[in-house]
């Protein structure tokens, strides 16, 4: 199987970011909250990216920040996926009033923009990492629900699913052997997009001061801490922007490739 060059680049950077997140304490030159220099020192041999608004090593904060951001995004994506696809498949296979009740409720949640909804909830909830993950995951699971339900409904009207039902197969076989294998690829591609959305979401919340709380580092927070520097021409706040852009574009490239492969799978063996 040949992997297109764009997908290879995407896979490389995605892998790189995840590995860096996992081994962050090993590669970060300084501690996360350690004040090691002056305010906003320029990049040097000692501080590859310079220092931040209170003299911490920016590279170390970027690495630790990546860890936090990627961890929260990953956990929220998993939560969103499990909740959304289980409910989506359940609704599609059950049909009838079960489907109606869940679908209308999801419509309702989606009638309020996610960010606004999150802000409303965060006005009364403490902003801890578990709460962020649950909030983001559940809000986003509405999107996964819609996709999973649509994909499953498309598949359950296929003659081969009807053939399985006529054969007398149990619901387990129908979901896991007939429906799921055909639904997996679009869901995996969607997972990439949801992950990107989560990264953007958590960064936005942190930037607004309602996400990850200092001194813990995360990419959105780094922007918030260093935004004043912009006015003096100090680009410290821009590094997280580059990091997020590279990560998101890489994942987009991989997701595109998975989607293309999905369509091609219909025409031949995987």
């Amino acid at each position, binding site marked *: *199987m*040949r992997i297109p060059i764009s997908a290879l680049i995407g896979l490389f950077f995605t892998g790189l970011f995840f590995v860096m997140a996992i081994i962050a304490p090993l590669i970060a030159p300084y501690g996360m909250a350690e004040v090691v220099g002056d305010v906003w020192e320029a990049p040097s041999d000692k501080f590859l990216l310079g220092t931040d608004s209170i003299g911490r090593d920016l590279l170390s904060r970027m690495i630790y920040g990546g860890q936090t951001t990627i961890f929260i995004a990953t956990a929220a994506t998993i939560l969103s996926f499990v909740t959304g696809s289980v409910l989506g498949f359940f609704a599609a296979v059950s049909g009838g009033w079960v489907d109606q009740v869940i679908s209308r409720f999801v419509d309702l949640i989606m009638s309020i923009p996610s960010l606004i909804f999150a802000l409303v909830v965060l006005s009364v909830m403490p902003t801890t990492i578990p709460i962020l993950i649950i909030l983001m995951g559940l809000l986003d699971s509405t999107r996964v629900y819609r996709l999973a339900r649509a994909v499953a409904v498309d598949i359950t009207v*296929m*003659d*081969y699913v*009807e*053939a399985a*039902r*006529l*054969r*007398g*197969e149990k619901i387990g076989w129908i979901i896991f*052997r*007939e429906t799921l*294998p*055909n639904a997996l690829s679009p869901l995996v591609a969607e997972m990439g997009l949801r992950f990107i959305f989560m990264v953007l979401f958590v960064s936005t919340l942190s930037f607004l001061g309602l996400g990850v709380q200092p001194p813990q580092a995360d990419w959105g927070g780094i922007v918030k801490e260093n935004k004043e520097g912009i006015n003096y021409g100090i680009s410290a706040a821009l590094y997280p922007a580059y990091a997020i852009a590279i990560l998101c574009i890489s994942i987009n490239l991989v997701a595109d490739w998975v989607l*293309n*492969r999905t*369509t*091609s*799978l*219909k*025409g*031949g*063996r*995987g």
Partner: protein
Amino acid sequence: MTEPLLKVRGLKIGATIYPPGEKSREIEIVHGVDFDLAPGKVLGLIGESGAGKSTIGLASMAYGRGGVEITGGTVEVNGRDILSSGLRDVRRLRGAEVTYVSQSAAASFNPAKQIMEQVTEAAIFQNKFSKKEAEERAVELFRKLGLPDPENIGSRYPHQVSGGQLQRCMTALALCPQPDLVVFDEPTTALDVTTQIDVLAAIKEAIRDTGVAALYITHDLAVVAQVSDHIMVLQQGATVEYGTTDQIINHPKEDYTKALVSVRSIQHEEKQPTETPVLRVEGITARYKGTNFDVLKNINVELHPGQTLAVVGESGSGKSTLARVITGLLPPSSGKITFDGRELTPDLPTRPLEDLRELQMIYQMADTAMNPRQTVGTIIGRPLEFYFGLKGAEKQKRIQELLDEIELGDGFQDRYPAELSGGQKQRVCIARALAAKPKLIICDEVTSALDPLVADGILKLLLNLQKIEDVAYLFITHDLATVRAIADSIAVMFQGEVVRYGPKSQVLSPPFDDYTDLLLSSVPEMKLGWLEEVIANRKMESAGN
């Protein structure tokens, strides 16, 4: 001899294909075709899917659909080579000298515009007629084509008229600019059988009255025989045989042509009913949830072991709904079904496994009837495992036996559905049904999506298997030729009711009720002049008009 209107020499057409995961590449789909068409004559292009007939038709307008490109040869219209002229000249040709009628008028009409505007657009744009003249012409054509209310139908929108009517409008659209040549691309294929004949007759009359020349493209030799002067038989982008209609139909030279001519001529001796039927449907009435009319009204039919009951009707007659009721997918509102001496419960989940095993189903679209992620071995093996608990070598052996029975042989076990041809897919579906050792198989339009020769092969196989396995078929179809070929008894359905029912010999002999007469007379016959005969002798109007 007059100068030909259309002169095609060495026409080669290529296409760019994009195989998944590989680089795109060029393939040749038409390999050098020659023909002439004199003014006012009709040439039929016939072949199975993939023969390149539509592509050749569009080449006469210098048009390639999708990634299709004309790579060699010449196409002359009225003495001008249209392939070497610029886009400006080609645009003057399209819609003026040569026009086009597509298979699906419903998709080819712009949904947002009135019919009249679309019918007259080319004539006005190409400066053939003024707006007023063009509209008068259109009304005249509507009348000639037998459309109801010809003065006002033009002010309607495409979705406001029926499929058969829209196909006639499309013909009017093509004829309105007074072209020299019309390309008809399967114009009646998407229509119901009874509607097809009327539209065909209308097209034929319009061609004769306007003196236009035509390329008539179809996969149905019997249809093309009714309208064309010459016929060209194509197979995989090359000419097989080219001659007058009389020569092709009555004295075919090539084996392939002979096979096409003799298609649908399977003979089947009718069997006598036995003591106890395997399936008895009594007083079945059914409706879909949320609707307030019965799709099935008091249906009573019987099917005897090892025999075939054909259920015939057009779309909307309720024949597929009957299958859903019998399989338990749609519980009936009243009536009962007895299968093999015991009464079936109305809905699927309550039926014992034994009933499910003995009653199998084969679908029209083999493509969607098989899970694309499962191999042929898994597809056929699952019923063996599920009903009989077969495993390992024993299962493999039985799978191979079944593959032999459906004449597919070795090496198919590990293939995926996408790697099979249409006919092969349907064979695998048959094997899957047989694997359950059923007493009855419901065949829902199993041959209607297939090319005629392939369909014939499937019918022969089904008849053979019936002899070996002693299985009964409930055969649902709209095609009476198929019914003639395989049925022992026939039920004709019309608007949710069985209007005629009995042994084949009886149902197919006069005196007929009006609907059966209409249906019977709508099956194109492989003989010249059949169309005129039929239209002259009809008792009933088809519903699609």
